[in-house]
């Protein structure tokens, strides 16, 4: 896996939409070269169904993934995991 021959990790994050800006700044601060956002996903988790209503983002999720080296991947994952103690979300490396 990887674009440049280096061993890359894909970190996938599902987060409630109101917090996407926070996740982006975590990724930015980790110095990663890029990320891709899947703007509108829904789902179910420990916090119940998040199947969105159109007029507010409170029950919507957003997905984001970033390709990066293993160390950075772990760094991002740890910071986001702290965030999702309070906010709905899941991290996959």
């Amino acid at each position, binding site marked *: 896996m990887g674009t440049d021959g280096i061993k890359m990790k894909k970190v996938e994050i599902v987060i409630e939409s109101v917090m996407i800006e926070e996740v982006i700044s975590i990724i930015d601060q980790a110095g990663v070269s890029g990320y891709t956002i899947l703007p509108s996903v829904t789902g179910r988790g420990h916090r119940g169904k998040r199947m969105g*209503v159109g007029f507010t983002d409170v029950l919507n999720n957003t997905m984001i993934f970033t390709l990066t080296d293993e160390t950075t991947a772990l760094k991002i994952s740890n910071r986001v995991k702290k965030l999702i103690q309070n906010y709905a979300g899941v991290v996959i490396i």
Partner: protein
Amino acid sequence: MDTNLLSNLMTPPILFFFFGVFVRLIGSNLEIPKALTKFFSLFMLMAIGIEGGTAMADSGLGQEAVVVLISAVVMSMLVPLYSYPILRIRLKNLYDAAAIASCYGSVSAVTFIAASSFLTKMGVDYGGYMIVSLVLMESPAIVMAVLLATTVRSKEAHNEGAQSEGRPPLLPMKKILHEAFTDGTHLMLIGSLVIGAMTGMEGKKVMEPFTGGIFKGMLAFFLLDMGLSVATRLREMKDVGVFLVGFGVVMPVINSGIALGIAHMLGFGMGDAFLFMILVASASYIAVPAVVRYAIPEANPSLYFTMALAITFPFNIIVGIPLYFKMVSAVWGG
């Protein structure tokens, strides 16, 4: 008069709300695309903003208006303040209490729209500054909630002592206030109000077929979607116990009563009084929950959002509007 009340309430848009509830309860797959629901909500804020702004431009802000606006702001801070201790009686999670209190301090634009079009059909006038009240009542309630939550947090930190280290990080207050005052739906309403005030009757006329003519149809679609959402929330309502359901139904009546008293004391006109009651009695399920989610992550959105949307909103639409109108009529001698 009662059948008149009913027929003035049972317009196509409101009926589409009931239809939406029904359709989801029987398990239909009917869906309004989310992009359109979002648009309808912005459309409605634009329409009432321009309406209000034009009315303001026309009549200016007299002393009467200023009294109403001050009352509105005060009530949007008082309601959370006295709701919070009531909610604490039963709620263990004090953050939930703060979040719910905040929603009830703020307002529901759709309830306001339904009430004002009901009022127009009943042939009662009201001031354009009532829409300014609607705008002004959004942010103070949020600020109150954040203050309440901060109190809870510092108390908890004190109790826990050194353990507080492990707690998840919170967002800085500056970010939260920024969010509260720049929320998109909030700004849409303010912006449209200002543009309405700047362009006056001429601007209104230009926008009329869009914000006026097709308004009821757009409202019908929006209310249909709200009906679908309400029913979805009702189905998921296990979190919300009897106490909170009671709160969601009783509190609006109490709030409207207090608002009635204030309106009477300060000599509001009948239409203004009615809409003031509606504003105080209604709870926010668009702007406030979004900001509260951000600001008080410890609170469960299933509670405050569901209560404002799935309990208090339908209650106000079905029972509240005619009830508050009867109350106001009794006092003002309508």
